[in-house]
């Protein structure tokens, strides 16, 4: 069948299966229908719930301002799908184009979208992880359990890991007057994501809000009482913390286990795909019937040296799902690349944090607006003479401008004055990431155009 006729048939009568019935899965399904897909659609999700939103789980839900049962994702349109909830996909037969479910059933597809996301890395010592009072926070069910225990209230909560989620949990505890200790291996919270300069501001936020913040330290073991409830945590400096609730926030692992042996290029770092969201097989050959989107995907980004980025960003999941869905039912020339500029937000201790670009690639950072001491600022990250990222604390509304600087490869340091009359520093300082992994020098690629349809890459060869 010629490509065009095939796509016409696919749009009318094809079978599309989406594995992972959460944010990316739902938005992809809606896009498919919005773009006229009339065939059959099957949504497979291992959680028993309809798609819900995760960001509130570590914010409004823990604060008791929203019920974990009321975080359903708003629906953009009716998707007329067959829902298979509460059953995991357990295997994939790429040749026969079938997804095998945990209950033994098989679902055939013409196009498959994998949007299985990530799961929280559990406490590595299994027996200790089983102790009553030890939690992770990824799902609604996790949130229900943790929230119930927080209402106790606990005498002290221990958060292991001061990334975004860990910091938000600590913030929620303090907001409710619960004593909390945060243990972080790096020298400050958020260091992995934003570097030491901004991390120092985050550390102040924690301490000023009464968090017992322990940095440069590791939790070496958890100990329970005779009834199996967690009682005390031991730290690498020989100290210990008495606690009755431990939240393990050590980051996430990709949900790719079910693809073992399938021949797809899937591993612990995610599923590699091309800029059009088509998955690679393990030989590095691109498939044309299997697509990936959301936290589970790793895709090359031209703005960032074509590095394969895996992002755990809400906005990325939505944008990538839309591109994947569009491409699944479009013939070659109509396809679009996923060129979303990474953006992430968080709110903690009453501060709105937002970043664009990839701060962790930054070598240097400079404060262009506001001031670190007021904790209202915009910080710009530079990488090899260009703007690579920006972060704002309580200054979100400027970020679009900085996104444009990133997209167009604007020079760093930023030379121009701004309307802000607190030009604190206004000179770059080392961003202070613990382990900078610097990609090699290369040509410059920038983005132009606004709408998804006319976004263009502009390629500038390396100068000598």
């Amino acid at each position, binding site marked *: 069948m010629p490509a065009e006729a095939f796509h016409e048939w696919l749009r009318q009568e094809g079978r599309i299966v989406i594995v992972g019935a959460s944010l990316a899965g739902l938005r992809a399904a809606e896009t498919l229908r919005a773009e006229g897909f009339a065939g059959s659609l099957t949504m497979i999700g291992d959680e028993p719930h309809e798609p819900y939103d995760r960001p509130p789980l570590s914010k409004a839900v823990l604060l008791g301002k929203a019920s974990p049962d009321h975080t359903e994702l708003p629906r953009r349109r009716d998707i007329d799908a067959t829902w298979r909830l509460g059953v995991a996909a357990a295997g994939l037969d790429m040749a026969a184009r079938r997804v095998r479910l945990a209950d033994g059933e098989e679902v055939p597809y013409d196009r498959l979208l994998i949007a299985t996301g990530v799961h929280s890395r559990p406490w590595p010592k299994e027996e200790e992880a089983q102790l009553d009072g030890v939690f992770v926070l990824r799902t609604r069910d996790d949130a229900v359990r943790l929230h119930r225990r927080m209402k106790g209230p606990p005498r002290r909560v221990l958060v292991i890991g001061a990334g975004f989620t860990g910091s938000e949990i600590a913030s929620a505890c303090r907001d409710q007057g619960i004593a909390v200790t945060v243990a972080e291996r790096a020298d400050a919270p958020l260091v992995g994501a934003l570097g030491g300069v901004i991390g120092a501001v985050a550390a102040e936020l924690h301490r000023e809000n009464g968090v017992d913040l322990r940095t440069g330290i590791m939790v070496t073991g958890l100990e329970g009482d005779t009834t199996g409830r967690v009682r005390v945590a031991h730290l690498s400096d020989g100290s210990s913390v008495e606690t009755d609730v431990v939240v393990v926030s050590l980051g996430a692992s990709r949900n790719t286990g079910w693809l073992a042996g399938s021949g797809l290029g899937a591993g612990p770092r995610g599923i590699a795909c091309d800029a059009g969201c088509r998955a690679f097989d393990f030989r590095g050959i691109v498939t044309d019937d299997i697509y990936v989107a959301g936290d589970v995907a790793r895709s090359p980004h031209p703005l960032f040296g074509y590095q394969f980025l895996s992002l755990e960003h809400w906005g990325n999941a939505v944008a990538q799902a839309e591109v994947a869905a569009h491409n699944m039912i479009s013939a070659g020339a109509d396809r679009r690349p996923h060129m979303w500029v990474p953006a992430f937000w968080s709110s903690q201790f*009453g501060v709105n944090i937002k970043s664009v670009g990839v701060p962790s690639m930054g070598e240097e950072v400079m404060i*262009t*607006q*506001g001031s670190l001491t*007021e904790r*209202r600022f*915009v910080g710009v990250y530079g990488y090899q003479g260009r703007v690579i990222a920006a972060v704002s604390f309580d200054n979100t*509304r*400027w*970020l*679009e*401008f900085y996104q*444009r600087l990133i997209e167009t490869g604007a020079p760093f340091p930023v030379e*121009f*004055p*701004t*309307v*802000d*009359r*607190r030009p604190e520093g206004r000179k770059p300082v080392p961003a202070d990431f613990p382990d900078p992994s610097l990609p090699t020098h290369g040509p410059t690629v920038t983005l132009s155009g*606004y*709408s998804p349809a006319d976004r263009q890459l502009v390629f500038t060869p390396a100068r000598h």
Partner: protein
Amino acid sequence: MTNGPLLQRITDYANRADPYPLYEELRRTPVLHEEEDGPYAVSSYYDILGLLHDPRVSSDATNLIAAGADELSGPEATGLPPSFIRLDPPEHDRLRRIANSSFGPPHRPDRIDSMSGELGGIVTELIDGFGDARQIDLVDQFAYPFPVTVICRLLGVPREDEPRFRTWVDPIVAALDPETRQRTDDDFQRASQEARMQLGMYLAGLVEQRTKEPRDDLLSDLAASHGTDGTMSMMEVLSTAVLLLIAGHETTVNLITNGMLTLLRHPEYLHRLREDPGLSVRIVEELLRYEPPVQLVPQRTCVADIDLRGVTIPKGARIWLMLAAGNRDPERFADPDRFDPDREDIEHLGFGSGIHICFGAPLARREAQLALAELARRLDNPRLVEDPPPYRRNAVLRGPRHLNIAVNSVRS
């Protein structure tokens, strides 16, 4: 300051009823600079959006004065410091944050929502007031008194004082208009500054009262914010109150009037709105795109050279952000000249964007939604008596001065 021929035509009253063909012409030169000391008019959607988020673009009155162009709110001249709409960070952020703490989330997330019943009551009262008239001037009998009553209640300003503050508001608003500003003689400027001061003094009396006996209104909250921690000076309280009072009604009048005019020109939506009041949400969003009450922002200047579409806007130059032109930019909206509340994607510039995004947007939306839904429900067979209606002079805050509507009856 002088404006070249195209900008002059845009400010020219003769083109007030339908400036959109001119905006289309304008967009052909997305960064238009006609006269050496004239403004740079920016008219395409993405450029405007970009500049609204550009930290090189200042709203600060003193920068404008430096650029030799603005006489409106110099602190020495009026005695009242500029309101936050005319300030940059950090002052802007501080004042707006304090004002917001009694108006919106996170502190008062329900302030607007909780007013719905009250707003509905005012709407009903005004429409009941039409009696069995067969012809109504929608502006004088409804679109003006409604938001005035609301902002008075919200601030805690006695409604009976409206005729008094009206005499001060008019010259202040007139001074926003580039056309008037161009013809301006010193007397005119002085009159507007004087008026602002008078209004400030009038409000000072109320603020003083509220300091002693706080009530549940914004003036009381503002008065309290001038507290022990010294977060707002008394002068800042007053200029904020002046701003809220004026901005709180001068724009909503036009939103409602433009809305009714547009619905009468597109009766299918008027009918649909009657059947389904919930449609008012989409209708109002599309109105903010299609007939925005604030047509342009003429008060920005840049603090550094800005390159835009091959043009360098030099440091110190004045920029006009042509919101209404951007809202009908075909690069951004499919079929932009069509009024289409069913469009999926209406991210308009009607309220601006960036740190100065309309402070009262949630209230203005709610007011317009309620007003239009109720008018659609209660007016029996409404018809325009004259089309186009007579417009107000102002090119910035554009809207009909009168909107005469014939009806068969007013339903109960």
